[in-house]
């Protein structure tokens, strides 16, 4: 791959997906795109670049999907799901007792482990959420991973990385080395294709947004724009969850970190991005600005 090819792919991926590749990521591009080139009957990445330049839309989509599909697993990092179970959901069950509805968005759902982990957390609440309307919306840029997600089928390796054995036995059906999530859990999640660079106001507003380990691939300006739009998509007392290596600090003041709850953010009341009035979650305090 020539430096010109790499530069072309960098710009192409930035425009199409927001992916911000630094100059030292040639190995990543080669490792992900060479198998794709071979699959398409091409000898090497420069041939792939030529095909994209000549307007091969299918190949262009495949390139974006190959570069943006990221590894994930059930209950990834564990702590965010502990917060969901122990802090966020109890607060919301109290705050939404009158309307009995919850909306949760998994904003980069990849192969579905995150939204299904959320669904299992809600299932485990049992009677506390009986009769509630639950919307879990899972979005991803890649149509291919969305199709895999909808099927809810995972390998033996995938179900062992983060998923407690009790939940595997309770919510999955085994077929040899393959495990499929039961229909009642699958039906809790709606999967939709979405590019975070584009408008997402049509999704409505949410009580909780999981946007973990995706914004790290965007540049600062793009992150700031997405945070601003996410603030408008979050209820005034809602919670945003970011990945362990991510933060809003120094990028936007639309959100403020929740004290003693790493990775959790709420709308900054000082900004007045949305009309105030709804109470903060029970047991949660907004941290002092850092």
């Amino acid at each position, binding site marked *: 791959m020539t430096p010109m090819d790499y530069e072309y792919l960098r710009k192409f991926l930035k425009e199409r997906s927001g992916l911000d590749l630094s100059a030292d990521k040639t190995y990543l591009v080669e490792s992900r795109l060479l198998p794709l080139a071979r699959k398409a009957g091409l000898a090497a990445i420069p041939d792939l670049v030529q095909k994209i330049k000549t307007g091969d839309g299918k190949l262009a989509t495949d390139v974006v999907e190959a570069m943006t599909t990221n590894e994930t697993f059930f209950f990834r990092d564990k702590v965010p799901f502990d917060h969901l179970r122990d802090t966020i959901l109890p607060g919301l069950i109290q705050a939404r007792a009158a309307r009995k509805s919850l909306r949760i968005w998994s904003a980069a759902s990849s192969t579905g482990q995150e939204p299904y982990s959320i669904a299992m957390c809600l299932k485990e609440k049992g009677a506390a959420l009986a009769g509630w309307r639950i919307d879990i919306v899972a979005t991803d840029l890649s149509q291919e991973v969305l199709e895999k997600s909808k099927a809810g089928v995972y390998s033996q390796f995938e179900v062992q990385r983060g998923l407690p*054995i009790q939940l595997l036995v309770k919510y999955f059906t085994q077929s040899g080395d393959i495990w499929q999530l039961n229909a009642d859990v699958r039906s809790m999640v709606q999967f939709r294709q979405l590019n975070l660079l584009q408008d997402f106001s049509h999704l409505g507003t949410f009580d909780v947004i999981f946007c973990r380990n995706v914004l790290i691939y965007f540049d600062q300006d793009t992150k700031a724009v997405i945070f601003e739009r996410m603030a408008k998509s979050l209820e005034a007392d809602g919670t945003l969850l970011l990945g362990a290596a991510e933060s809003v600090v120094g990028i936007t003041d639309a959100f403020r970190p929740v004290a003693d709850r790493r990775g959790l953010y709420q709308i900054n009341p000082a900004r007045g991005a949305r009309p105030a009035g709804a109470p903060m979650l029970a047991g949660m305090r907004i941290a002092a600005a850092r």
Partner: protein
Amino acid sequence: MRTCLVVDDSSVIRKVARRILEGLDFQILEAEDGEKALEACKRGLPDAVLLDWNMPVMDGYEFLGHLRRMPGGDQPKVVFCTTENDVAHIARALHAGANEYIMKPFDKDIVTAKFQEVGLI
């Protein structure tokens, strides 16, 4: 440093498990069957047991029953690690007091995730 008793009749599996668990800061003890594992537990209870199911002399399931009946035997976290990969075996293991269950083949990520799940890491 926490201790983990690795119980498996395959020396290769014990070696692989030892390498992974030492990387997670465990001190490793080894036993090649359930009977030898029980003797080791009588000398001193480990913090964790990584336990195969099918072994000569005494299998992992029988060992688990004996362990849980020992004074203090409810304390060690027991993680099965076996080729018995069907729901019926998993359910039996959990009912007998296993804390987690690894279906072979396994890798470092799986062992780490399971040990995190039961609070050992």
